[in-house]
């Protein structure tokens, strides 16, 4: 294969490419969901797949999310590898019973005889001016469901690499796609075939010594921006992109926090009962004697996702992150 120039691509394009490559490699891979065929999905992430692979491989289903996921279970039982699209975060809720009671448990139920290699793509999160039900951060539900992997990319390259890994996984993966990063661009080489990114490894996106920001998905760029802004205040922040909420990369996270002694967890999802509680608790359990301050959380408020005109007040932004960093007890107090 000849060398190909590294060209800018959007996260949406990288996701499309990941499905395309997976479908080309493995005839067992089937894409299904509402509007994924002819239309190419409301975010165009499945654009071209029906054309290239036919409607039997990329299928417009009837409008019923439990039915979509439930039939995907049956297809996986027969050896296919369904890649299911839930049109928006909130529209995955009708499929929760199938997800919790079957998708996450079938392997366990059958002592490994019947694994379900299903990838469930869920565009999630806010910041796109969506009306009600189009901006939920539902990762807490998935994290609390043993048997699921929960993965979310923050870069174009990870979008490709992690989606390839998800589709290749013999376990069900809830693949959370940050809606507002769909159109984010990055230099990324779409011809490079080896950049499958193993699931379960966090990555340090920015090294720093003062404190660690632990985050994922849509909040990664916000944290990187905050880290830049923090230099003015004299803080050198490390930013860890979790990439995978389940399995959780305790090693990378703990190593970072042991080094910096201070941590803030940042996510869009509501704080109470959200992922940050788990993350902060884990860090504290593992790094207690290295902590100069309690692990703090910057999260969405504990409210239903607000209407578009108010969402900026809800979303964790640079200021709120810096405020939290400022509260990390830089001068010892008690």
């Amino acid at each position: 294969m000849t060398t190909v120039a590294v060209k800018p691509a959007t996260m949406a394009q990288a996701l499309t490419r990941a499905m395309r490559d997976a479908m080309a490699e493995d005839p067992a891979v089937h894409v299904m969901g509402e509007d994924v065929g002819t239309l190419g999905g409301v975010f165009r992430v499945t654009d071209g797949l029906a054309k290239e692979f036919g409607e039997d491989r990329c299928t417009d289903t009837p409008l019923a999310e439990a039915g979509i996921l439930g039939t995907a279970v049956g297809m996986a039982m027969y050896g296919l590898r369904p890649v299911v699209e839930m049109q928006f975060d909130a529209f995955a809720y009708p499929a929760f019973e199938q997800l919790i009671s079957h998708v996450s448990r079938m392997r366990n139920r059958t002592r490994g005889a019947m694994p379900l290699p299903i990838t469930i793509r869920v565009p999630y999160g806010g910041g796109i001016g969506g009306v009600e039900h189009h901006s939920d951060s539902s990762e807490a539900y998935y994290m609390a469901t043993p048997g699921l992997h929960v993965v979310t990319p923050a870069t174009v390259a990870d979008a490709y690499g992690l989606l390839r890994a998800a589709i290749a996984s013999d376990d069900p993966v809830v693949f959370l796609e940050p809606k507002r990063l769909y159109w984010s661009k990055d230099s990324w080489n779409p011809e490079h075939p080896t950049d499958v990114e193993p699931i379960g490894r966090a990555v340090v996106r920015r090294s720093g010594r003062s404190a660690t920001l632990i985050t994922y998905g849509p909040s990664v760029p916000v944290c990187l921006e905050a880290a830049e802004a923090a230099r003015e205040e004299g803080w050198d922040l490390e930013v860890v992109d979790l990439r995978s909420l389940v399995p959780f990369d305790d090693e990378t996270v703990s190593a970072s926090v042991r080094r910096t002694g201070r941590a803030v967890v940042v996510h869009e999802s509501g704080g109470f009962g959200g992922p940050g509680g788990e993350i902060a608790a884990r860090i504290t359990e593992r790094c207690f004697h290295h902590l100069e301050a309690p692990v703090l959380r910057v999260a969405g408020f504990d409210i239903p996702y607000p209407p578009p005109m108010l969402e900026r007040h809800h979303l964790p932004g640079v200021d709120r992150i810096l405020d939290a960093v400022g509260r990390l007890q830089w001068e010892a107090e008690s």
Partner: protein
Amino acid sequence: MTVMEQRGAYRPSPPPAWQPRMDPAPLLPDAEPYRVLGTEAAAKADPGLLRRLYAELVRGRRYNAQATALTKQGRLAVYPSTTGQEACEVAAALALQDRDWLFPSYRDTLAAVARGLDPVQALTLLRGDWHTGYDPREHRVAPLCTPLATQLPHAVGLAHAARLKGDDVVALAMVGDGGSSEGDFHEALNFAAVWQAPVVFLVQNNGFAISVPLAKQTAAPSLAHKAVGYGMPGRLVDGNDAAAVHEVLSDAVRHARAGGGPTLIEAITYRIDAHTNADDATRYRGDSEVETWRGHDPIALLEHELTERGLLDEAGKQAARDAAEAMAADLRERMNQDPVLDPMDLFAHVYAEPTPQLREQQAQLRAELDAESEGSHR
């Protein structure tokens, strides 16, 4: 005697000798969608009603155009148009009494407006300043419902509650052809039939669920055929014939009010515009299909009938257009004003009383806003 006891047992203990509860034949829809305009039935239609429908259709068309224009000006986040479907929207509103309830889907702002709701309030969701811009109790219009088919059980529950309280209130629930595939559709219709709740289900079959044509949504002879499986009558109606939709809905409402139980109505219509302003309909359908349906336009059909019968002249048309323009001008003007928003509203109605946790967050936002207004924040 309780409502439950009134029901008459179906086969509480199915005997070896089988007895179906009822003859299914009357529950099945006719082979042809019911039509009034251009048929003999039109002669029986009340001229006043037809004129009223006409004025509302014209106003509705204008409303759709204006709302779509507002999306282009950035005044609405998104708008799902009902151009081509005005007959269903308007008839749904007019078939109800004041005390009845309307349960619209996300597409049905026009039905809410035709029922008397202020268009600005009806559009608040789509403008993005609040989820529901009106008090549902004021006009008995439930919040515009985005998760498809989830409003149907609400309508059933409300109708059932009204009946339990002895009120002769009917609930009319609207849903799309795509929404009929959801489990909630099934559960709602079943509860309604078992409870004999006074509820009318109106499915607007406009040919598509976003890009997905009906052929990929169902293999049924018609969506109205689903009714027999619940033990309620199914009716098929030409959804672009305002007089027919109004008649079929009114009959069903009357039937429900009289204690006859629910009805499922499928109105065959067509979505002339794209799914929303954000959609590109050329990706999944051709112009010729749209053109065919333009030839079956609800306004043109009614206008033709009224004109033929001498019930509408140029002055009458102009009056309808003028009223529509006035509505549009008012809507435009008011939608061009920025809504006044208080970010503290984020916390105002999560619970009757904010939890201690929300009070802390409230204080945090308050402090941030104060700092921001003092210009002291980073």
